[in-house]
């Protein structure tokens, strides 16, 4: 029973990272109907930047996280202006392919800057707490809190601020929004910046648990897709729940079935979902 609880707790921390990563993907899809294949690379860039700042420049962890999110957000606006906006009104596939090209560029750029070594991101937290036989390290606890804060901040931004209201308007009807004087292109750039920042924060949560290397974005991209497809494309609440669920079920699967087959778990879930209910759990379309 204790191992069960332990695995649930471990899974929840990783699942928090999945949720935030998938939130970024689902946000862009919900707003712009765009599939961003470079999202995994934004995640990687966030983790690598945090590594450089904490391990090399000795910036405090929280500050590094905020800086990394800001830099990746800026970078994703450039990505938006170069590779997304010019292709928005052509075939939807084109944006997907151009984001793939950007992902190739980013992986190779990161390899030039950081080379292919696996880096361990240091965190300032040590010590652990034990409740009812379940041990949670302080690092994991702080990382989950970061995730919760990020999700609450995102909810507040979208539901309670003026910009968030405009974003919801654009998501509902792009032409109508443009008609009443909303600068749709600027809103798209903001959306992509928020999504990039979320990817960087996900990198900050998962990076210290696993480790950081230039091709780390490939694997999580597929998990992110698995989460948003199972949840239903564009469903934010679903993405959070399914992300946590995926983290927990992967950990339990690793504990009770086989660690070697953990990575196949997300694939099978994804393919099964595509076959049985392509619209996802949380969508009634």
């Amino acid at each position, binding site marked *: 029973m204790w191992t069960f609880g332990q695995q649930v707790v471990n899974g929840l921390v990783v699942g928090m990272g999945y949720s935030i990563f998938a939130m970024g993907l689902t946000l862009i899809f919900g707003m712009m109907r765009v599939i961003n294949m470079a999202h995994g690379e934004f995640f990687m860039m966030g983790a690598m930047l945090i590594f450089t700042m904490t391990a090399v420049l000795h910036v405090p962890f929280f500050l590094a996280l905020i800086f990394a999110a800001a830099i990746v957000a800026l970078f994703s606006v450039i990505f938006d202006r170069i590779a997304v906006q010019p292709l928005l009104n*052509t075939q939807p596939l084109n944006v997907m*392919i151009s984001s793939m*090209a950007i992902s190739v560029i980013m992986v190779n750029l990161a390899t030039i800057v950081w080379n292919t070594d696996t880096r361990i991101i240091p965190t300032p937290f040590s010590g652990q707490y034990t409740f009812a036989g379940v041990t949670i390290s302080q690092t994991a606890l702080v990382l989950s809190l970061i995730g919760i804060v990020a999700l609450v901040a995102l909810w507040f931004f979208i539901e309670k601020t003026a910009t968030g209201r405009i974003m919801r308007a654009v998501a509902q009807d792009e032409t109508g929004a443009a008609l009443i004087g909303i600068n749709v292109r600027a809103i798209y750039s903001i959306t992509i910046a928020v999504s990039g920042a979320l990817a960087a924060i996900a990198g900050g949560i998962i990076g210290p648990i696993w480790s950081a290397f230039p091709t780390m974005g490939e694997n999580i991209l597929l998990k992110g897709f698995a989460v948003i497809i199972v949840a239903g494309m564009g469903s934010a609440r679903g993405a959070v729940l399914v992300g946590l669920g995926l983290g927990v079920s992967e950990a339990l699967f690793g504990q009770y079935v086989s660690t070697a087959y953990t*990575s196949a778990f997300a694939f099978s879930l994804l393919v099964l979902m*595509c076959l049985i209910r392509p619209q996802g759990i949380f969508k009634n379309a």
Partner: protein
Amino acid sequence: MIYREAGEYKTSYDADSRTFPIKFDRMGYYTAMAVAFLVVPFIINDYWASAVAVPFLIYVIAALGLNILTGFAGQVSLGTGGFMAVGAYACYKLMTGFPEVSIFFHVLIAGGVTAIVGVLFGLPSLRIKGFYLAVATLAAQFFLVWLFNKVPWFYNHSASGQINAPERTVFGIAVTGPNTDAWAKYLFCLIFVVVLAWIARNLTRGSVGRKWMAIRDMDIAAEIIGVNPLMAKLTAFAVSSFFVGVAGALFFSVYLGAVEVGEAFGIQKSFLVLFMIIIGGLGSIFGAFAGAAFMVLLPVLLKNILVGGLGWPTDLAAHLEFMIVGGLIVAFLIVEPHGLAQLWRLAKEKLRLWPFPH
């Protein structure tokens, strides 16, 4: 003046419906075939074979395969690398399991095995399309690479987890293994390219190809006028995977000789082949050739400039090549989404009137 359709007198339906109805095209085709079969094998050396000719020919087959699926039938696939791996591992198992059978048949059977796997992964395409299909094929890519890494039976329990091509011969001449002559590798691949390109060209001209294109352009309308979407999509997956499987088998056995699956057939390979057909032109046989040539020649050219000319380290140059290729893809998508094939069409249009444009 140089390129014109006028003055072509045809007296039969056969003449009218041939693959290259214009004399200029036909001459170009015959010349290219003559050069490829009668000139190149005698002058080719190891550098040209391993750096340019053999990878070009193999990527042509892969690009033809993906173009059938994505360009003609409109089903996006991100799993090309994984399907190439199926071809490679099928070929390896056949080569080591049945050494007495000719490698030629092994490559063909490897293509057949890949076709079956392709149909299996193509089944979801009946229910899902567009983005969902792309993600499902992406999952297939990861799954297949993971499978070949994890299950020792596929690599005959070798300690390194790699697969190595043993020496195999065709008519007594080695085509795989370390002691292979450049011309033998080249000719072996060339024969596959010519036959498969001929099949692809004729399939896409005929009723099967028209069904694929009908599905691509509007699947519901196609179904209403009597195209069976099940058959059309599954044949597209089967034919495409066959091509990709043959390409994977050749890539492993003739070109690389030793393969580590994540390295040789990773997601990057899927992107590369997809980029080839985007740059070459979706839905065009010529585009598959042009795109493969572009993506093979550009790195060689850049490498010669960066490493040979400017003296940069090789690995830095290699990463920079990928970045330049990525930049070119974005540029092509924005400026000329129909690729090199469209540029060629425009050039023909200009040549028709040249030198009197009015």
